[in-house]
């Protein structure tokens, strides 16, 4: 139980150990712990940010989807409109073409009829003159009577 020089040796050892601990043991351990704490904190912050980003992206994506749907509807609608328009245009064109063809046909028919009428009239005049010649049998001045016949023919 006696106090002896061990006390001194031990005290010296104590201070050396404390000094060594302070210089060489504490700093690396503490820096490792603090570094890791920082990294964990950063990681957690990153995870939070990522979650927020994801949420934002989802909102954005759904918005874009909605927009795309709206655009598609618009396109379909305008296409429908255009289709109706084209059909209408085609109908109108066809109608015009048809009436044009009909009018042309009618005009042709009219011209043909006139031509035939004229022909007939001419032939009838000739026929009448031939008939009158035959009836008179004698020489009648064809030229003198011609205007009378022509008058007749015109009255037909």
């Amino acid at each position: 139980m006696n106090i002896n020089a061990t006390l001194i040796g031990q005290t010296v050892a104590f201070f050396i150990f404390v000094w060594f601990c302070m210089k060489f043991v504490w700093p690396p351990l503490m820096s490792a712990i603090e570094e890791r704490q920082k990294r964990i904190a950063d990681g957690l912050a990153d995870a939070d940010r990522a979650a927020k980003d994801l949420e934002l992206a989802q909102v954005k994506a759904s918005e874009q989807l909605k927009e795309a749907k709206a655009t598609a509807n618009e396109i379909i609608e305008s296409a429908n409109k255009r289709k109706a328009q084209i059909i209408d245009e085609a109908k109108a064109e066809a109608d015009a073409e048809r009436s044009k063809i009909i009018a042309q046909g009618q005009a042709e028919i009219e011209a043909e009829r006139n031509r035939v009428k004229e022909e007939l009239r001419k032939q009838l005049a000739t026929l009448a003159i031939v008939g009158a010649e035959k009836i008179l049998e004698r020489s009648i001045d064809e030229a003198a009577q011609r205007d009378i016949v022509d008058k007749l023919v015109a009255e037909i």
Partner: protein
Amino acid sequence: MSATGEALTPQEYIEHHLTHWGSGVDPNAFWSWHIDSLLFSVGLGVLFLWLFRSVGKKATTGVPGKLQCLIEMIVEFVDSSVKETFHGRNKLIAPLALTIFVWVFMMNFMDMIPVDWLPQVAALIAGDHNQHLRVVPTADLNVTFSLALGVFGLIIYYSIKIKGISGFVKELTLQPFNVKAMIPVNFVLESVTLIAKPISLALRLFGNLYAGELIFILIALMYGANVAIAALGVTLHLGWLIFHILVITLQAFIFMMLTIVYLSMAHEDH
């Protein structure tokens, strides 16, 4: 009981276990050394520093290994204890607390080793069955007092450094009664308070560990008696050992906490 050498009486056995491996001609002279206390305390201190240093050097900031985890837990525990109690700025306090806690715990832990193992080994090595060896450095008053005196020195150093000599003297003389006439009374009271700090630190640790060691020795004596008593001894040994796990940890913690508290008080300016 000693396997080598002649049978010892219980008294001789206890005396054998309570005698230090000393140096010097006269074991009672001041200039002699307790070689066993120095050997084990310095050895354990070096082991502590080497272990923590090697882990600290290899410490990764990524996923730590199990040993690194354990050591970081201890370091963080000490660090948080210091931060809770000590509010000044001092780079020494936390490493000091860590050194005290781990070192004292390791020295206390020597108590858990069966009392005859290491003395027997020492006797075999020395070739002398009378070789003395006490393996628990904290059951040596020299060791606990040296720790306490180290802390005491730091208390005085920081008291004077923070408050100046006049501040320190004022603290000793103008409290608790701030009247000139009461200065001698104050001085006596405050000196007792101051000196009680290292003495209580040293004696508390020493008393607990010395008593623990003595009880282990007494229990070890039972193994030498008949089978029934030896069986009882096993039970007692186990019970005391488990209880002692608490004691050694608690004593290391108390020593550390009181060191922090005393140094925190030394840093406070009244």
